[in-house]
């Protein structure tokens, strides 16, 4: 709320000092992202130089030991897992938020919200572990082998559900009360009100929520790594094992050397690009809400 420039405090040395210290810390905090991008690029350069960008998509397979670097199966893996989980989690999350606001009695809404917050705080490795020991054997009974795209989608769904629910909850809370009163005065029933008044009014918040959950789904590593089987292939059914970009990094980073290591940093760059695109999209949407 205050602007530094207009304030003349040159006679107060502690203020000057404080200002410079604060600017220093903020500069550190602000440059971390740049640093991350720079390091990803620097480490990825050997691969981009020796292998070249097209070969990451045209090589016959991913066999880094033989100099083959096809990332496409992993990209598809990430994309399938992400799409599946977002498709399930979005309606579930939005309905959960609707439940909190318009259906549940207050004695139920509050504990339900707390429960969602708790879900948000549970570490991915715990979800992964649970998926591994509970979900995977169940899926194996239906259709072996068990570790599969389906297991990944289900675990991811549970993981990103709190993100969309909390976002949707917040944006439903921001819907002006007079809209609801207006709808009630017209004698609209509950769901009709929600569908035709609440959702349009909360649209941008809901969209931001979807974008955030998508980001989380793309970036998730441990749980996916534990339940997806990690076979490099383009799946032909949801019971096939897959490997995502993130899992690939986590699995191979420990022993990767040279171009192989650099190739993993290339996939890191790809992930980073996706996230930046999503953040920009989210910002664009929320700006639309502010000025539109």
């Amino acid at each position, binding site marked *: 709320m205050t602007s530094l420039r207009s304030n003349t405090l040159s006679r107060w040395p502690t203020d000057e000092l404080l200002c410079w210290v604060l600017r220093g810390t903020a500069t550190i905090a602000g440059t971390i992202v740049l*640093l*991350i991008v720079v390091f990803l690029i620097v480490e990825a350069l050997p691969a981009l130089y020796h292998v070249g960008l097209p070969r990451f998509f045209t090589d016959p397979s991913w066999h880094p030991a033989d100099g083959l670097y096809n990332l496409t199966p992993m990209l598809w893996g990430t994309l399938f897992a992400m799409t599946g989980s977002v498709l399930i989690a979005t309606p579930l999350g939005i309905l*959960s938020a609707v439940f909190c606001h318009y259906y549940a009695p207050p004695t139920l809404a509050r504990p339900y919200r707390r429960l969602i917050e708790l879900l948000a*705080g549970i570490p991915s490795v715990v979800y992964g572990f649970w998926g591994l020991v509970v979900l995977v054997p169940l899926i194996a009974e239906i259709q072996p082998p068990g570790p599969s795209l389906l297991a990944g989608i289900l675990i991811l769904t549970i993981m990103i559900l709190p993100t969309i629910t909390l976002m949707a909850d917040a944006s439903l809370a921001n819907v002006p009360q007079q809209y609801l009163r207006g709808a009630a005065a017209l004698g609209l029933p509950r769901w009709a009100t929600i569908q035709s008044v609440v959702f349009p009014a909360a649209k941008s918040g809901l969209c931001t929520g979807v974008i955030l959950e998508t980001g989380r789904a793309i970036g998730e590593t441990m749980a996916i790594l534990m339940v997806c089987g990690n076979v490099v292939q383009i799946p032909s059914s949801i019971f096939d094992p897959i490997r995502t970009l993130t899992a690939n990094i986590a699995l191979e980073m420990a022993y990767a050397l040279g171009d192989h290591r650099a190739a993993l940093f290339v996939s890191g760059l790809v992930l980073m690009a996706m996230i930046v695109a999503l953040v920009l999209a989210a910002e664009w949407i929320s700006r639309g809400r502010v000025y539109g």
Partner: protein
Amino acid sequence: MAETLSRSQNPREWLAFALVWGSAALVTATFCWLLGDIVWHGLSHVSWTFLTAPPENAGRRGGIGPILVSTSLILGVCLAVSLPIGIGTAVLLAEFTSDQSLFGRMTRRSLDVLAGVPSIVFGLFGNAFFCKTLGLGFSILSGGLTLACMVLPILIRSTEEGFRAVPASYRLSAAALGLSRTTTLVHLLLPAAVPGLLVGLVLGVGRAIAETAALIFTSGYVDRMPESLLDSGRALSIHIFDLSMNVSGGDANAYASTLVLVIMLLAINGTASWLATYGLHRKVVTV
């Protein structure tokens, strides 16, 4: 009356009603299943010996003593670095820059992106920067520093919220009395912003403890008792991962470790929401 009328007229209302309650029930059931499973299988293995003893036979037997020590050391490094930077940045953003200034906008945007960066990418960065470039190797220090980068956005955001919740009249009356900004900050704003700061701290700790992917190739796998910050140390979450994926027959101890981790996080989240409510409550009472 009106409601029953429209419901009976409109099957869509009924469907929506069923769907909404159904999804809430589904989510609750899943949560109970997950938590119940962990508590059921884990509880019998958790004991004082388990918490203090070193792991044996790759973790199949023994406890998690050294792992808890490594986890807290990593957390300590993370907080020691991220707290000063985080608070400083939050103060600058909330009190010393206008929302329109270029510096403020750039910092804010870069923090937004930072908040979205996947943890595995933090791992790659930490490995390349702290382990390789700075030569810290696989160590508790590298892991803690990597986590510090990761929790900064959370810490900054909620500390900033805390400062913005301080009534503007404090600043005006302090300025009208001719107090310097340093004094205003230290004596008036900082104490008033403490609830927000604590919430940020607790949320940051929660995220740091939960983290696995960023630590695999920064702090490493070694499950011995660390002797210095430059030793590799295994965090609790990595221990769970390793036991369940790489050690056959490690499930019992993996369950117990998971239970310990979940209890820690539930306690942390509980503290955060208690602080948030308590902080708000106090504000209402005093102003």
